[in-house]
């Protein structure tokens, strides 16, 4: 024990420890990096009853009407919701984007404010105002039924310029951004394509067919998990690779050079 204790004060101890720690964390992280949570498809929109619509209306009046207006026809600060459909509500409320917390360049995803039943009621109410896209069925968004290769081809033409090649997210102008897609549920992905929330353009079923949407979901489902090469460094491309080359590579090499050049005791 004594020998070990004395060794702790060795000048080299921090360097050796650091190296070991780096090796260990790097190795362990790469091996045990969390796999993407198995995305369970949301329940399909239940057939709405008049009770649901009434409950939804009450919720709307209490939580949404301030901005969207008492009849949901929009105001100066918020758009009209007539004809946006249940899918838009399920996406906006189901990801926590609505109700909006504060004015900003865009409404970010945040903890969801309502339970599933309330969301369904709100969706039913808004859907009753005018025809719009409905919430997709579980089968429509099942990644296992999609073709990821076709999904990748579509994704990189239609989505990658904003959301990054594998959906890690990216910047838009004026502080807006395209979010990371790895934690988004298949249903929400589908709804986002269908309704074009906020800055995102609309990809209706004529432009990207329902099957193609499912292919895209199948592709995204495979991203953000294990990277064949080890840590994925955020999948952000060459900038993060360069940063780590300097921090880890040049950092370790200079540490080793200093160790090699230091006079031995």
């Amino acid at each position, binding site marked *: 024990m004594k020998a070990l204790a004395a060794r702790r004060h060795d000048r080299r101890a921090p360097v050796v420890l650091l190296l070991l720690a780096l*090796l260990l964390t790097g190795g362990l992280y*790469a091996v045990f990096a969390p796999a993407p949570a198995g995305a369970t498809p949301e329940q399909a929109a239940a057939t709405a009853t008049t009770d649901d619509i009434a409950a939804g209306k009450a919720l709307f009046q209490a939580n949404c009407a301030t901005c969207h207006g008492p009849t949901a026809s929009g105001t100066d600060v918020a758009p009209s919701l007539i004809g946006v459909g249940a899918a838009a509500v399920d996406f906006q409320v189901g990801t926590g984007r609505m109700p909006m917390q504060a004015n900003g360049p865009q409404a970010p995803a945040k903890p969801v404010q309502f339970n599933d039943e309330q969301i369904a009621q709100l969706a039913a109410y808004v859907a009753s105002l005018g025809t719009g896209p409905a919430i997709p069925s579980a089968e429509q968004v099942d990644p296992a039924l999609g073709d990821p290769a076709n999904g990748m081809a579509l994704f990189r033409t239609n989505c990658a310029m904003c959301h990054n090649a594998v959906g890690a997210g990216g910047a838009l102008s004026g502080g807006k951004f395209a979010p990371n897609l790895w934690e988004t549920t298949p249903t929400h992905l589908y709804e986002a394509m269908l309704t074009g929330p906020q*800055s995102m353009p609309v990809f209706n079923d004529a432009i990207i067919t329902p099957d193609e949407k499912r292919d895209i979901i199948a592709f995204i489902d495979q991203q953000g998990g*294990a990277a064949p090469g080890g840590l994925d460094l955020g999948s952000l491309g060459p900038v993060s690779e360069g940063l780590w080359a300097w921090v880890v590579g040049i950092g370790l090499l200079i540490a080793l050079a200093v160790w090699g050049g230091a*006079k031995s*005791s």
Partner: protein
Amino acid sequence: MSHDNSTEIVQRGAGEHPERFDDPGVHQPNPRLGDLDEKAAKKAERQVAALFTVSIVGTIVFVWAYFALPPGEKPESMRLSNIVLGLALTCILLGIGTAIIHWAKTLMSNKEYVEERHPQRSDDETRAGAIQALQDGAADSGISRRGALKGAGLTALALFPLSIVLPLIGNVGEDWNVSKFKHTMWRKGTRLAYDPTGRPIKASDLTIGSIAHVIPEDLHEAESPLDEKAKAVVLLVRMDPRDLKSEREPGFGFDGIVAYSKICTHVGCPVALYEQQTHHLLCPCHQSTFDVADGAKVVFGPAKRPLPQLPIEVDAEGYLVARGDFVEPVGPTFWERLT
């Protein structure tokens, strides 16, 4: 360099103090533990041996992993193979490296030696000899007396590279017909099709707020599809006709649908980040921002010119077709763009 600015002090200490300090001479380092104590040296020896052993074990693990851990079909198995092989290789290399350096630091002599330097310049005698040698050589060649040889020889040498350069330059740029930059494969009646699927697009497909990435329907019949695609890609946007302030070429759109070249007028990246609410189109490479609602004019960033607009109309079956090629060259600026 004189130190005449410190005259006051120098005068006070005149005679007693030199102008500069003297070099105290090489300071040999203190002896190391291992130099004084054979036990410490033995310990260092064991450490070096242990580090070499790490390397040997690394090689064994590497060979084992090569056979036992194939990359397989899944990202997880590929990652495992890569990590084990990589960490084993790290042990192999860092084991040897740290062992050698540790050896050099602790067990090899740390006495410093002094070696004289000599000026880089060769001495006068050598220089004179060199000049003489050159002059003798020149005299023996007779070059100064035979001017015709000098001229002919130099000319021959100067012309020789032409035989390499001419075929190289001649062929390397294919046909050198740079006017191809000015045209794309859009013709009157070419249908607009979705990229990458190639399905033709109906005007009714596009709802307000939607966009489509577009290629000519007959792209794959082109001689070099990629070359053509690099010029012909188009972004189709439908907005509320009331939001459409102006078009690049008035009348080129159709009922709120406008088609702009996707190739940035800055240095040619595909401009494709369309923000539905602001109608801004952003280039992810250098952030040039174009206002699609206002003739695709530049509102931010390093581009100067608006994006070229493709004239479109609807054919009898309701499909969107081009009314002709772009009226200006697409993509980045080049010298003879306007000629």
